[in-house]
């Protein structure tokens, strides 16, 4: 992706915040390698996370597609960031 690395880092930070707060997990546990199972994130938690991201970034992220292939936090963030960045390009 050709976006500004600083902007990407900020975005990642913001997504991590949302995952931690909406998933009700300790912020320090949300590391790139942490698996979705190890964080105890269920489908209902993902719905809550995506809803909060929609309000924050004004972007619709379906549950299905790229998000389902994510195995860990890094994968989850990449999938979400892609939607956010795509939406920003449109604006």
């Amino acid at each position: 992706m050709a976006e500004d690395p600083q902007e990407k880092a900020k975005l990642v930070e913001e997504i991590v915040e949302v995952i931690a707060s909406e998933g009700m997990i300790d912020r320090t546990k949300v590391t790139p390698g942490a698996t979705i199972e190890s964080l105890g994130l269920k489908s209902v938690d993902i719905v809550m996370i995506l809803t909060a991201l929609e309000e924050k970034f004004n972007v619709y992220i379906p549950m299905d597609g790229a998000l389902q292939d994510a195995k860990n936090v890094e994968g989850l963030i990449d999938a979400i960031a892609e939607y956010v960045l795509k939406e920003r390009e449109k604006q």
Partner: protein
Amino acid sequence: MAASSGGVGERRVVISGMGTVSAAGVGTAALWTAARDGISQVRPLVTEYPYDGRIRIAAQVPDFDPAKYLEKALLTFCDPFTQFTLVAAEEAVAQAGFAREELSGPRVGVIVGSGIGGMTTIDNGLRHYYQERIRPDPFSVPRLIPSAAPTTLGMRYAANGPTFSVGSACSSASQAVGLAAQMIRFGLMDRALVGGAEACIVNGTIRAWEGLRVMTPDFCRPFSTGRNGMTLGEGAAVFVLETLESAQKRGHAPLCELAGYGTSSDAKDFVRPDLDGMTGAMEAALADAGLAPEAIDYLNAHGTATHANDITEAAAIGRVFGERAGRLPVSSTKPVHGHALGASAGLELALTIRALQEQIAPPTINFLDFDPRCPIDAVPNVARGVEIRTAMSNSFAFGGINAVLIVRALAGGA
């Protein structure tokens, strides 16, 4: 297992007529043509009030003018889901060759499933009351209750037998058809008008569905790579059920036999499908029909195009059909008519019956590429000629209620 002696639980049940209203319009011919030729009926969303959500597509019944089909006095009491039901029933009854009075009396039942009921009435009523500060329609209550569809239908034909609505979300129509078949088998009634109806493509509902993140913003692609959710649909499907003996006696050739019905509940999760639950319902339907899995020649899948449903359903098909699972033609017609919730299983049963009649498996459209996590033959994009004597239709609902129906061709009408 087949028996026609008329003993308790042994009466064979047939489908004598069917009718549909769907995104393809009024009539099963239009629905079948669209499904067979793979022409999606998903269009830009049309709402009465401006919609501020992100999902802007749906499979809506186009240009539906209820006054064309129904008396004005009756329309006052009919939410769109009831209108669709009444119009679908006209086609079904005509095809069954019944005059109105032949469906009257205490031995005729009416069972219609719906996920929600009169959602348009609810949405409008709340808008009027809370936002516009005007009184809701005085007949809001009789319009919005889920039982409005079966009771209004029953009034039309003066059917006094068992009449109620079945609510099991996306498997409602299958439950209605299956329950009615059992009640006829066991002698609780002789004839029935059954099916499912839904009309909830209104602002409040679409926004609620968006919240679950299971809606695709572009294309519904069941079992395919790149799938990202479902598209909402609406409509109704109504079937006329009677015993084989009754059809033979009046010289009517039924469309098919309703051979099996199986249902199960996952009792686990609000939205996540379950392999055991799905498998259990399919096996129960086979057991009810007295058939081995090898007897099934075509399967109309639930196939919503959500990540979780399609993988779980494909795994369940693998469990039930074993090594044959990869060769059995399995298609989802939802990209054509949308996911019509309480009506969906009815629309899909109608298409399953047409597949049986035409010996054609309709395709799963919008299919990009084979997903190894869904190892089935999804009849991608193009219809296929298949020898079909017996076919299965799956429907699986939020809340974990699974229902499966099996239909079988009747050789020479018997």
